[in-house]
Structures are given as structure tokens and as C-alpha cells.
């Protein structure tokens, strides 16, 4: 522990509540009858379904392919029959549905053929495509596609690789338990990351409230053929935030609006490293993850869960209790309330936290902001939360952006310390989504303006083209006629008058029309039976008669 550590600004010390769920061994959740697998489990574009309703799929089979540069594939978590590809409820605060594939499991849990990847023989680009197709995303919470993150680009050398075992959020212990039990595999995944990024320095940051995890990781690091420094960092929330951990370990701050690769860093969660090792050394896609089920349950514990398993199955497995007051996906600081327990576990689900009135007493009613700036002291992003609150509340989003609203990591420290119990983060989320919506509207209106202007331009162009064509045609005709009668009517007037030309033009057009009419013989008249031919002849005769009759009164009228 010789490494010099730095401190980031702000932070809070909420009660940890970690020991509740670390005492029990990892359980595997039973195979559910039905798996509902959302197609948008990552940041970026929704994966495109590549199976049909009624298809039989195997465990680990790709059921939706990545589309676009920032995307990841989605796989069947067990074998069975695809029963539906439709909108199903997903874990989201709005309770709105999203596109999901529903698989009715057959209980056989039959794997598709899969083999380890020889990553050292592959080019980095090939390997990244493989990882994207194995559905690898960051499991720390942001679910950013790992393949994109493992491509720093030639312009950004990434000498320092940081593995995030901070897990600063109270109640959650899935990373802690994973490090205790699978330290070797985590570091195998780290080796692949080093290979892809070309990093020379590897740091593993673990908060000092997890001594067993630190010991396990240090033991595993000693066995590796490259230098891995396992660093114990002081426990402070949000010390497990990517930017905060990077600052504690290296002293480097990521400037506003920049990414960590801009300062030569890349940060990955331990869960991502483990999933990467499973993908490379076993060829397994990301179809399961560790989920901490804790809070108001009989047996708080960590469960190995197939993606697509419903929340309520897991809560029942941990022993549900009466008088729960709601469920959070994630921890108490950054977690999202889930209105419906029928939703599936997704790649982002690290914790299912069941609330009760004793564990999470309802907040007292909010009081007005007294501008005490305790939030500013606690803010790890060095922002002015009281000002952001004022602007967001007033709808002055431009000013909020000037005060670096988008540097807010929504960690909830400000809401935690606020003596007036104002839900500050809710205001920042509101302001951010309003700004994004505005941006989208602006793009749509720019597109509409562009298309409308092009339409006006096109109409003008078509009009001009038509006029030009007509003029050219008329010119050609006139020249032709001027040449023709000149040959024929040589002895008469040498140059035909304008009226004659016009008459000739009309006559020519008439002749053309008549020729066309004569050409258009009635269809279906060959190979007719004599009867039908007779019938047609009769009809024709009747028509001729009628035509004759129609003409007569006209003629007689003209005569009188």
C-alpha cells in the first residue's frame, strides 16, 4: 500500500448495510417458466430481433443482433420456444413497455455450440466485433457497450487501466461477492482488456470496507504474469464512481465535457471483466449476472440470475415479507423505483432493494431551499447544486447548462445532505430530459425546414424544365413543318404563313391521335368461338346504329 492516494471533493458517508447480504453463499436462481428478454438493455441503439415467433432457440443463441456502432447483441438465456416479440413491461420508473422477446423455457437448458476465442491470434477489430456479438456491456450500472469502450482509437493512448471494485453504493454487494469468489477469472478478463487497450499500468481500486475481496484479489494478482496493483481506497460515497475512483488512484481529473480516455484512462467494472473472461475463455455470451436481493426480505443474498427472470421470483426466493413500501432497482442513492414487479432482470440490474417503512422511513415534507450550500460541499462533481436547482425549477435550462448540469452524475449526495429534504436529483433529471427533448425537437424542425426548402426548389426546377422541354419541342416541330411544305408547295408561296403552319400542326396531331385510336384494337378478341363472335358483331351493329341516331338530330338541327 505504498501508492499515494488522492481525494476527490465532497462525498458523504451513508450507512453501508453491506453485511446483510454478504453472509450467504451465491445461489443460482431456478429456471423460470418464461423469460422476457428486453432488446434495449444497453446505451445506444436497440438490438434487432433475428428470430421469429415459434422458433426453438438454444441457451446462448443470439436472438437480436447489434445495430449501429454503439449497440450490443442480445441472447437467449435458456433453451425454449420464442412465444412473442412484442411490447412488455421493463424495469423503468415510467412503467412503460419496451420491445422484448418472450421465451417459454423447455427445462433442458441446452447450450448452443460455443468455443473459447483465441484472442491473441485475432486482430483487435475482429475481437471487438466478437465481443459486441456476445452482448458484452458494462455491468457497473451504465451498460455502455464494452466493445466500443475497448476501442480507445489511435489518437488516445490508454496507458492506465482501472478496474472498479469500489461498489460504494449502500446495500449492494454483488461486486464484493464476485471478487471474493471469482478473483482469478476477473483478472483473466483484465488481461484481455490490457491486450485490447495496450495499457501498461493496471490498478484495481477496492473500498477498504471489503477486506475479504481485497485479500482475494491480491492473492489472484500474485499469480498473474503481469503487474496488477490492488489498491485499498477509503470508503466514501461516491468513491466507486468512475471519475471519482480514477481521481483517487491517479490524481487525474477528467475535464468537463471530456471522457476518461482523453486523460489516458479507462475504467471498467469488475463484473464486466468477469463477463469478458467468460466470453473469451468459454465463448459464453452475457446471459446471466449476479444480483443482490436485499432490504426488507427474509434472506438477503446474492443470486446468479439469468437475464429475463422476473423480479418477483427473486424476491420470493429471498423470502418476501409483508408491509414492503416499494422496490428499487439499484441502491438507495441512485436506484430507480420500479412500479411493477413483473419486470425482468436486465444487464443493468445489480441490486433489487425491497423497501420498508422501518428501513427507509418516508422523507419529511420538503421545505424551501435556504441556500445553505451543504449540497455544494457534498457534490463530488464540484457543481453548485443549489443554483442548478433554482434554474431547473424555473425552467431556465440554458443557465443550468452554463452551470455544467451535464457534469452531474446524479449520485444523490446533494439530496442526501439537504436539510430541507428537497429531491434535488429529480430536478436535474427533469432538466436534462427537457434539454434532450428540446434538442430532438430542434433537429426535427431543422429537417422539416430543409425538406420544405428543397420541395420549393424542386417545384421551381420542374416548372422550368417543363417549360424548356415544351419550347424545344415546339421549336423542333415548327422547323420540321417549315421544311416539309417548302418542298411540296414550291410553286405557290415560297414561305408558308404562320396560320398555315399552325393548321398543319393541328392536322398532324389529329392524324396522330386517329392512328393511335385505330391501333388500339380491343383486347381478348382472338380465338373466340363463332357464337361469341356473332354476339360481338351484333353489339357492334347496335352501337353503329345508336351512333347514327345520335348524329341525325344534330345534323337536322344544323340544317334548320
Amino acid at each position, binding site marked *: 500500500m505504498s501508492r499515494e492516494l488522492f481525494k476527490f471533493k465532497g462525498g458523504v458517508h451513508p450507512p453501508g448495510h453491506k453485511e446483510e447480504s454478504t453472509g450467504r453463499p451465491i445461489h443460482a436462481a431456478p429456471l423460470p417458466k418464461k423469460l422476457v428478454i428486453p432488446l434495449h438493455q444497453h446505451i445506444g441503439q436497440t438490438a434487432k430481433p433475428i428470430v421469429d415467433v415459434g422458433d426453438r432457440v438454444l441457451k446462448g443463441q443470439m436472438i437480436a443482433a447489434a445495430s449501429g456502432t454503439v449497440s450490443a447483441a442480445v441472447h437467449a438465456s435458456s433453451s425454449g420456444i420464442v412465444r412473442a416479440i412484442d411490447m412488455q413491461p421493463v424495469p423503468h420508473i415510467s412503467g412503460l413497455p419496451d420491445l422484448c422477446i418472450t421465451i417459454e423455457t423447455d427445462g433442458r437448458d441446452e447450450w448452443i455450440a460455443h468455443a473459447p476465442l483465441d484472442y491473441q491470434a485475432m486482430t483487435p477489430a475482429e475481437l471487438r466485433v466478437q465481443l459486441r456479438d456476445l452482448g458484452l456491456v458494462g455491468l457497473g450500472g451504465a451498460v455502455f457497450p464494452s466493445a466500443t469502450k475497448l476501442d480507445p482509437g489511435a489518437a488516445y493512448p490508454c496507458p492506465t487501466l482501472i478496474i472498479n471494485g469500489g461498489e460504494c453504493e449502500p446495500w449492494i454487494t454483488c461486486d464484493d461477492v464476485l471478487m471474493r469468489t471469482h478473483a482469478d477469472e476477473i483478472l483473466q478478463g483484465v488481461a484481455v482488456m490490457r491486450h485490447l487497450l495496450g495499457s501498461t499500468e493496471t490498478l484495481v481500486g477496492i473500498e477498504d470496507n471489503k477486506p475479504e475481496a481485497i485479500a482475494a484479489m491480491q492473492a489472484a494478482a500474485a499469480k498473474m504474469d503481469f503487474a496488477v496493483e490492488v489498491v485499498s481506497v477509503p470508503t466514501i460515497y461516491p468513491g466507486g464512481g468512475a471519475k471519482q475512483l480514477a481521481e483517487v488512484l491517479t490524481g487525474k481529473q477528467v475535464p468537463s465535457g471530456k471522457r476518461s480516455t482523453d486523460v489516458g484512462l479507462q475504467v471498467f467494472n469488475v463484473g464486466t471483466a468477469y463477463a469478458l473472461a467468460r466470453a473469451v475463455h468459454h465463448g459464453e455470451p452475457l446471459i446471466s449476472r449476479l444480483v443482490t436481493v436485499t432490504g426488507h426480505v427474509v434472506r438477503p443474498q446474492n443470486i446468479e440470475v439469468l437475464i429475463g427472470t422476473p423480479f418477483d421470483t427473486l424476491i420470493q426466493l429471498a423470502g418476501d415479507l409483508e408491509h414492503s413500501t416499494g422496490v428499487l432497482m439499484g441502491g438507495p442513492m441512485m436506484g430507480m423505483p420500479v412500479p411493477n414487479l413483473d419486470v425482468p432482470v436486465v444487464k443493468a440490474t445489480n441490486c433489487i432493494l425491497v423497501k420498508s417503512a422501518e428501513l427507509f422511513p418516508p422523507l419529511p415534507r420538503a*421545505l424551501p431551499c435556504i441556500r445553505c450550500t451543504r449540497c455544494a460541499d457534498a457534490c463530488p462533481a464540484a457543481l453548485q447544486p443549489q443554483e442548478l436547482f433554482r434554474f431547473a425549477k424555473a425552467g431556465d435550462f440554458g443557465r443550468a447548462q452554463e452551470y455544467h448540469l451535464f457534469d452531474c452524475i446524479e449520485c444523490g449526495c446533494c439530496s442526501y445532505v439537504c436539510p430541507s429534504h428537497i429531491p434535488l436529483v429529480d430536478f436535474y433529471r427533469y432538466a436534462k*430530459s427537457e434539454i434532450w*427533448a428540446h434538442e430532438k425537437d430542434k433537429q426535427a424542425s431543422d429537417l422539416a425546414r430543409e425538406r420544405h426548402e428543397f420541395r420549393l426548389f424542386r417545384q421551381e426546377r420542374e416548372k422550368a424544365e417543363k417549360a424548356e422541354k415544351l419550347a424545344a419541342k415546339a421549336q423542333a416541330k415548327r422547323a420540321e413543318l417549315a421544311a416539309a411544305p417548302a418542298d411540296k408547295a414550291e410553286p405557290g408561296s415560297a414561305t408558308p404563313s404562320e396560320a398555315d403552319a399552325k393548321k398543319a400542326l393541328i392536322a398532324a396531331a389529329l392524324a396522330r391521335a386517329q392512328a393511335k385510336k385505330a391501333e388500339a384494337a380491343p383486347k381478348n378478341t382472338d380465338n373466340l368461338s363463332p357464337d361469341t363472335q356473332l354476339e360481338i358483331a351484333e353489339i357492334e351493329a347496335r352501337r353503329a346504329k345508336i351512333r347514327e341516331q345520335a348524329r341525325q338530330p344534330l345534323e337536322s338541327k344544323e340544317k334548320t
Partner: protein
Amino acid sequence: MFTAILVMVGIAVVTGLVLGWSAIRFKVEGNPLAEKIDAILPQTQCGQCGFPGCRPYAEAIAKGEADINQCPPGGEEGVKKLADLLGVEPKSLDETHGTPKPKSVAFIDEQTCIGCTLCIQACPVDAIAGAAKQMHTIIAAECTGCELCLPPCPVDCISMVPIAEDLPHWKWKHPVIELKRVA
């Protein structure tokens, strides 16, 4: 005295030349105020303001020939922005030009469509795909919801469908905080 006149005339000539040259060199194409107004307008191109499109309306406002409260799709918020830009008092929307409606896109009932192309000719943003005697369909991503395709349709097969809230379009609502009564 003569020198003074010479100097003054000299200055006048030089400044005149500079001004004349800059008038040509830095000539502004179009009306910059109309541009700014046009950027605020929602670009629905619906014509409810009484002008054939957003751009003509913007030019009319810039010239002072039209009021700022004639754009129902822009809503009260749009009027407020125009008032801020032009330094005038915001007013409520003029009801004679229509009332704001929820954002919608047109939808063609493909069973009823006869392929007459009248809606294609009416669409101000070319958001309808189709050809004579072929089925038509709306390119929903490009439809501005202007409703200009509704009147020309001879078989009334076009309807306006309000955009339903889905996950990609979901927004965080303004938090409602109950304040404690202290008095």
C-alpha cells in the same frame, strides 16, 4: 482656412470610400431578423398563420406585417420566445388561427387509399411516399403533423394519430414537492 476645407473634404472622401466598400464587402444576404424568427418557428409548414409556410410568416413578422401570436403549433411558449426576441410584450395565441393540439402524425388507411397522389402534392415536406394508382404511406419520422393532406383526400383515408409516449420519448416530469405548512 483653405487647408481646413481640404482636410475636411479629404476625410469625407476617405470615409465615403470606406463606407461604400464595406457596404459591398459586408453585404448581408436576406433579412437576419427573419432568419432568427424562422429559427424559433416550429417548421410545421402548416399555413395556419395565414402565410404559405414558416419562412413567409417569419418575413412578415420581421416587416411588421403580421402579429407574433398566429402560430398554434408553436404554442404560448413560441409566442413568448418571439416576444423576447423582438422586445415586445407577449400576448395570448390568436384563437382565429387555431388552437394548439397534441403532437400528431398523419396515418393513411392503406385499405381505403386509391392512390390519387393528391396528398403527395399537398405535403409541404415530401413526407408521403407513393405514386399514381399505387398505395401511399406516410414517412412518420418526417411528418410535421400539419394536417394539409387531410382536405385534398377524396376518400378521407388519412387520420391524425397523436404520438403516444414510449420509452425513447419519455421525459422526467417536473418534480412535485409538497411544501410543509409552517404558519
